[in-house]
């Protein structure tokens, strides 16, 4: 317990104390010129981006943004090199940002603007020998999807909402048995004519109700106080919140039966919660983390839950684009709850 905190700090530090890198970028190069290739190379060289794919039409870009697969997309028009080399030409670049993840999106914007600015100066000075004042410069068309104003509230408050739901459920679930153990009422309950399944259900139902009520309340705050839209189906959101609640409930119950006191249960929840926090992309996008951490993120239910939450709220996603996250959550939920149920039942008997 004592060294657990230190190890965790090391892990969180390792995963998050690095510059934002590897942001997935999609490019539609319509120009296919040395100049456009130079631009792509320059973007890759920043290290901020990881070239997800080069595509030939808009629809894969739209799909990727809808699925949350990319943070940014760059569209280079067919006349890019012509405009670049003609005096007073105005090369146009289109950038689409995934505003649902506003912190990485801002970083992407910064990096693209930086590259384009440098490139502009080089072109002006080296190739044309002109004074920078004499050129019209780049025409930059920026579009932000899902979050036009790149409001940080769109990014942070859903993360906070997802995290609060997790902590609420974990804490309540973790207190169920550890509390009775500490007060000495658990033994009494075990000699009462309840089956272990009845005891587990009796403990689980209040936690689920509290979790969902709390979720509704917090969603209200996020929506009305911070104007975060709910673009998808509210019903789907609540059904999936219920599913996520049950996944976390399994974790909390196992902690509760494992712990000898409420203190221990509380500390375990804190440790697990902080690890999950790391994978919400709150401090640093998961894409920027070391490879092993990115793999680890896949087995963290909160990671998938947050993707679902953000997608429904900001992108209005439905089942068709959410199913990979839902499937992951279902699989993790089945594994966690099977283990938890067996463990808790064995401990109760």
């Amino acid at each position, binding site marked *: 317990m004592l060294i657990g905190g230190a190890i965790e700090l090391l892990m969180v530090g390792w995963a998050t104390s690095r510059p934002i890198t590897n942001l997935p970028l999609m490019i539609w190069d319509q120009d296919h010129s040395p100049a456009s290739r130079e631009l792509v190379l320059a973007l890759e060289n920043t290290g901020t981006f990881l070239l997800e794919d080069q595509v030939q039409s808009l629809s894969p870009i739209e799909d990727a943004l809808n699925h949350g697969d990319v943070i940014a997309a760059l569209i280079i028009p067919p006349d890019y090199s012509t405009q670049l080399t003609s005096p007073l030409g105005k090369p146009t670049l289109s950038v689409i940002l995934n505003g649902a993840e506003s912190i990485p999106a801002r970083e992407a914007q910064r990096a693209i603007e930086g590259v384009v600015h440098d490139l502009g100066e080089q072109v002006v000075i080296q190739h044309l020998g002109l004074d920078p004042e004499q050129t019209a410069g780049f025409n930059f068309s920026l579009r932000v999807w899902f979050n036009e104003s790149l409001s940080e509230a769109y990014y942070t408050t859903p993360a906070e909402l997802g995290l609060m739901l997790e902590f609420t459920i974990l804490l309540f679930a973790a207190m169920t048995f550890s509390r009775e153990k500490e*007060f*000495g*009422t658990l*033994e*009494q309950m*075990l*000699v*009462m*004519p*309840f089956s272990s399944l009845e005891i587990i259900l009796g403990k689980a139902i209040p936690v689920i109700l509290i979790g969902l009520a709390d979720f509704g309340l917090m969603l209200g705050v996020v929506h009305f106080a911070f104007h975060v839209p709910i673009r998808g189906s509210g019903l789907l959101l609540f059904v999936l919140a219920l599913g996520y609640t049950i996944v976390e409930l399994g974790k909390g119950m196992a902690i509760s039966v494992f712990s000898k006191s409420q203190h221990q249960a509380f500390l375990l929840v804190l440790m697990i919660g902080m690890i999950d926090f790391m994978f919400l992309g709150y401090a640093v996008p998961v894409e920027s983390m070391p490879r092993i951490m990115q793999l680890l993120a896949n087995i963290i239910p909160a990671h998938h839950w947050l993707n679902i939450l953000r997608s429904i709220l900001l992108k209005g996603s439905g089942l068709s684009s959410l199913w990979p996250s839902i499937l992951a959550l279902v699989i993790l939920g089945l594994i966690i709850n099977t283990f938890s149920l067996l463990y808790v039942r064995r401990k109760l008997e």
Partner: protein
Amino acid sequence: MYDNQITGRAENLVKKFGDFKAVNKVSFELHRGEIFGFLGPNGSGKTTTIRMMLGLLTPTQGQVEILGTKMDGKSSSILPRIGYMSQSFSLYNDLTVLQNLNYYGQAYGLDSSERKLRVQEAVAMSGLTGSEHTHTKDLAGGWRQRLALSAAILHQPEVLFLDEPTAGVDPISRRSFWDLLYTLVAQGISVFITTHYMDEAEHCHKLAFIQHGEIIAQGSPEEIKKNIMPGQVLEIDTDQADKVIRILREAYQKGKLDYKDLELHGSLVHLITPQVQSHSRNIKKLLTADNISINSMSVVEPTLEDVFIACMRDKVPEVHHE
């Protein structure tokens, strides 16, 4: 009166925690309408035994049978006929008297009219009429124990297990607690009770002394006093009891006097020895030589405390594991 019907049986119970034998080959029987007292110092294996009886702990060896059913963790069919009051306060502190009792009633599936009646009885029995809406955390120790007992018997169990129910309760409350127990037993309940109060042991129909996980004496209080006592008790009434004990102990060490046990019993000195008559003259001589005034000196019935302490002395204590 109840045909001495057996309601519970422990056969050669052994419980090991690692290398430590918490309970070692414990066997006893519970009978209808009887209070079975389980006596032993703290850490002697009382609670471990009671937890095995209830199926909360699986014995390393041996088996438990309650009302003809083997207790093996899956014996929930028998649970409605068993009552249990654990060592810690078994009610919820943040619920009121009434809420706690209703919870018990519902847990045991009493229908609402019957529950109402029994809860009312329980409130009256624990003397809490008028305090139905008090939170149990605000009750004094004695009341809490009576309430816990009332709750444990709300569903009218046939066998009742009580784990040190009167620990830390004042003598008057203990007295009335025992009165309650007698009422229950008269109705045909079997009671298994653990305690370390000697005066309570006298109230039991059957007794077992347990030390270091082993039963060292078992039977009715009379049987135990008669059969297990390693001698008779010489009671010395004197104003200088501490001096008396010092003198007699010195004599013992010098080989001038032989006894099994020498104890202060209230303000009286109790000396336990197989040959009382030959010793009393010797003792009188020793004490008068030291100018000690003796008010009286007589052979008395041993109390259970005498027996208990003598029993414990007889056994060479093993290494204590706590």
